[in-house]
């Protein structure tokens, strides 16, 4: 499965002068990727002969996230090393090349989105590179021989039941499973599991004709100055209705 090393969801993000974030903060595995790892590991427990490989594109520090994936049960890991940042097209090309060099996977699990850049599309580009079907936001997964049945969450709680054949790419949603947190022996064992490092430049990937380029980035200052509403419950309710109707103009009546 593909995982991503991202800043902790509780970290304060500071933008440096070079438009890069101050990386002196805690990085973690992208939360949705934990569901992807968990599902892959569960599948291995059912089908015995599966080889579960964690793959990422990132700096050397992303090794921590791969070790976490191995502590959760992945057998080995591949780190495609690159110092620069990548858009989803070039990330997908790199992951695809690394995956295909290793072998042909039956299923690629990944998180439905990443909490840092929120592009929502790397898995789709990866599926296009691998020329396999893809679904995102999977909340239920079952496999019989080479047939996959997944349930994906759509809008307003609608559920879509989809069938496809392996190989395929699946974007894991939060409700797919409850990731189990590794115990100390698992963490120690993960340190000894094999991790292959590949330099991105060694994969010989052609530069894509299209790309998304970041021009500038800045921190957001949160500026809201609260107005206190008080009084009896009825008075407060009246004021709220007034705000909804007159300020926000969201009430028809």
């Amino acid at each position, binding site marked *: 499965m593909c995982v991503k090393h991202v*800043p902790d*969801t*509780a970290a*304060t*993000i500071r*933008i440096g002068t070079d438009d890069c974030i101050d990386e002196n903060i805690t990085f973690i595995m992208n*939360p949705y990727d934990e569901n992807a790892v968990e599902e892959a590991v569960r599948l291995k427990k059912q089908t015995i002969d599966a080889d579960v490989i964690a793959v990422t594109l990132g700096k050397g520090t992303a090794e921590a996230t791969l070790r976490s994936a191995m502590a959760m049960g992945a057998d080995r890991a591949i780190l495609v090393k690159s110092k620069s940042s990548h858009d*989803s*097209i070039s990330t997908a090309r790199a992951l695809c090349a690394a995956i295909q060099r290793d072998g042909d996977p039956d299923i690629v699990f990944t998180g439905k989105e990443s*909490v840092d850049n*929120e592009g*929502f*599309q790397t898995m*789709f580009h990866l599926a*296009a590179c691998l020329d396999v*079907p893809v*679904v*995102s936001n999977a909340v239920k997964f079952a496999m019989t021989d080479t047939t996959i049945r997944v349930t994906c*969450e759509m*809008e*307003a*709680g*609608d*559920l*879509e*039941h*989809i*069938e*496809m054949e392996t190989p395929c790419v699946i974007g894991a949603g*939060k*409700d797919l499973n409850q990731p189990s947190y590794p115990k100390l022996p698992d963490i120690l064992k993960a340190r000894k599991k094999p991790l292959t490092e590949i330099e991105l430049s060694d994969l010989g990937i052609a530069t*894509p*004709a*299209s*790309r*998304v*380029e970041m*021009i*500038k*980035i*800045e*921190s*957001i200052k*949160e500026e*809201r100055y*609260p*107005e*206190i*509403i*008080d009084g009896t*419950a*009825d008075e*407060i*309710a009246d004021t*709220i*209705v007034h*705000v909804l109707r007159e300020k*926000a103009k*969201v009430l028809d*009546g």
Partner: protein
Amino acid sequence: MKRVAVLIEMKDGKVKPACLGAISAAHDSDAELFALVFKGTAAASLETLQAHGIDRVIEITSQDGPIQWNADHWARAGIQALQYYNIKTLLGLASVQGKNLLSRIAALLEAPLVMDCTAVNLSEHTAVKSQFSGRAVAEFKTRGEYHLYGMRPNALSAVPSPGKAILEMFQAVLEKSKLRVLEVQQGLSDRVDLTEADIIISGGRGMENSDNFDILFECARPMSAAVGASRVAVDAGWVSHTMQVGQTGKTVSPKVYIACGISGSVQHFAGMKTAGIIMAINLDPDAAIMHKCDYAVCANLFDIIPALTRKLKEITG
């Protein structure tokens, strides 16, 4: 003349209001505006679309007639329409369906796509979006033959631009899809979708249990609001994860966000900080949210919400 297309989403037989906001993003571009619609809904949407500046409404079908929902098929048919009409810029919504379709179209064309934009400049090919769950904002430039943008629902308001639109049919040629959609199971249809709601009323730790969420649903109904929840309420098992607002839940931009018994963690703010008005009802005057909102109500939500529900019912009848 340059051509721009907008991928239209329908809800209950009508164009989603958020789509009209996405169309307004293209108003300044002096391009010819196309609307791409699926599943025999063009006639129903024509009037609304031409009132908002669309010049040509393209109804996409296939050799077998209207194309039933299948994200892979819709994406491939959409690409054929873009190619046939020589359209290089495509706008859509960063809704669940929009993310699904735009990402597939971008992947199949290997085209640049910026998702969840709050603003775009179609002549410069630039887009603004949040990064790191709303803790930073970045501007991106798309380079390539195509330019795709998914607009955050409600980030832009609908702007009327009355005109006349031509209705055309486009027939795509589709092969068998590798995806088989077996069934679409309807959720609770009387509930408003979080990401597209004008008003969201959310509950957190202060709700105390699952049953108490009923007062939020009751309050939401007369104002057509969606009900959300903080991670605490979801993790406690009071409500489903589909209702979670925040970094590991949904990102929303309603016109009004009413937070009931929510302390306002960084992760929660990541999901709702772009709301127009944030209102907080909390017993604790020192809760983080009470200092980062527009209206702070320091009171017991179990007194305020029922009173508010009564007032709203009086107004809406």
